[in-house]
């Protein structure tokens, strides 16, 4: 069918959505690149400053700390979340009583407003009135409440733990969807051959859901590079910069210190790191993970 005469109509139909993505996704990538070589002025034209934003960045210990925290989230938080989600998915995939209820409950935090979840956990982790400290004290693990979010030792992992609490069910549902593609005959055949449950999982199920696991991994990469809402309400990046992540530091420089050029330079670096990590892991997976979905 020749649709050429409908071209004006096609363009008209595509225009609104294409505009949204060009203006709010693609244009910013290029705009950031220009801005990163400028000093931003609230009024009047920006001043070209060469690579000085990048020089400042590489000498800025807080930038390195926020990059490090982002990578800790990625290398520690993401695998923990995926492994937990995998275990849970394997369990609720079995015909056990109440498995639908478990699925619903574990997924329940995912749609809830992240700001609300951040506030809930900020309070649960409080050293005086927090429920977590109450439980720890009751079972005799500690004598004094731990101020988790004010502590240099615990703050980072408390924040990462909270994000895992929210996203766990989402990963579980993804893995569960992958598990539905595993033919039952294969597992049954292995069962007859006398393979135990661990062996069946390891040698049959896991290889068959490899692409799903890589998909989770890619989504985990994006999540770890974009974490913001919860950090903002739970710790604001503190204590010191112990929970400073790339986006929180970018936000703060741009919108609290008016250093938009500097923030743009950090965004460019962040985008490049994100892209590299994604492409490398996609290469490792043999391109199986395909694309990934962002929160919006």
């Amino acid at each position: 069918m020749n649709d050429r005469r409908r071209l004006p109509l096609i363009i008209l139909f595509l225009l609104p959505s294409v505009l949204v993505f060009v203006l709010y996704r693609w244009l910013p990538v290029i705009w950031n690149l220009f801005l990163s070589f400028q000093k931003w002025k609230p009024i009047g034209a920006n001043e070209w400053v060469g690579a000085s934003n990048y020089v400042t960045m590489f000498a800025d210990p807080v930038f390195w700390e926020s990059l490090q925290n982002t990578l800790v989230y990625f290398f520690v938080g993401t695998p923990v979340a995926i492994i937990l989600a995998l275990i849970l998915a394997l369990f609720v995939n079995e015909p056990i009583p109440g498995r639908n209820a478990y699925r619903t409950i574990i997924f329940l935090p995912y749609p809830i407003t992240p700001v609300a979840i951040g506030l809930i956990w900020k309070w649960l982790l409080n050293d005086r009135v927090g429920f977590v400290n109450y439980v720890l004290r009751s079972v005799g693990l500690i004598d004094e409440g731990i101020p988790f979010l004010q502590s240099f030792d615990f703050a980072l992992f408390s924040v990462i733990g909270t994000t895992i609490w929210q996203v766990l069910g989402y990963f579980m549902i993804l893995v569960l969807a992958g598990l539905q593609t595993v033919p039952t005959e294969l597992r049954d055949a292995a069962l007859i051959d006398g393979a135990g449950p661990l062996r069946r999982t390891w040698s049959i199920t896991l290889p068959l859901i490899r692409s799903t696991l890589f998909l989770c991994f890619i989504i985990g990469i994006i999540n770890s590079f974009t974490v913001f809402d919860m950090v903002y309400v739970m710790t604001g990046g503190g204590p010191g910069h112990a929970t400073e992540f790339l986006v929180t530091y970018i936000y703060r420089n741009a919108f609290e210190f008016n250093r938009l050029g500097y923030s743009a330079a950090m965004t460019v670096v962040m985008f490049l790191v994100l892209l590299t990590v994604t492409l490398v892991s996609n290469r490792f997976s043999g391109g199986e993970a395909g694309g990934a979905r962002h929160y919006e």
Partner: protein
Amino acid sequence: MQLLLLAVAVMILLPLYWVLKTSLTGENLFNYPPSLVPRDMHVFYFVDVFYWIPFARFALNSVIVSVIVVVTNILFNSMAAMALTYEFNFKPLVIGLYLSSMMIPFQTAIIPAFLLTRELGLLNSHVGLALPLMSTIVNIFVFKSSFDAIPRSIIDSARIDGVSEWRLLDTIYLRLSSPAIATNVILAFVWSWNNFIWPLIIVRDEAMQTLPLALSRFLSYFEDTSGQLYAFVVLVAIPVIAIFLLNQKRFISGILAGAMKG
């Protein structure tokens, strides 16, 4: 196995229950040790939220923005999906643009997005708040797979009857895609309702705050352990929890379609 699942379920439900209980009793803020069962329930804290801040105004902002986002999502996404049912030269380019946009998280676009919206004069406006979410890739592809499933013969015979392409979108494509519309509504609403970083950046006028933004600033009015805060948390979370629980299957199949796409 059951034991671990039970433990995880408790770890997820207990915090939510704790918030709900505290918002109704204020109990464990003052009592130590806290009790599991609520006593002397009252709605005082909920009333107080309305008393202390213009809650209705903030809720209205959130509702207006979400309605704009939902309506534009249905319209723009279905138009885009219908365009993709045609054959044309630059179709791969358009699909490439959509898919690659998924790899550009909005968080990496905040600075230019702010400058652009300022140029457009849309800071502190409902339209400005809705703009970046007016079309979403996942939802375009939800429509696309629904449209692709409609038999060509129906479309062709409608065309022979002289139905215009605009009417075709309305009377055939959308009419036969109510599950896809529902998915669009649910996902667009939840994303818009929960959105935080964008209102945080472009709202400078206190009266234009959306609920998550007002929630994050509520702490400046109160001590961080007040029953009012948790009543507020409950009020913000209830719509999205309700929407999820009422449309569980659709919500999950929608986000799965989004994740698998590409």
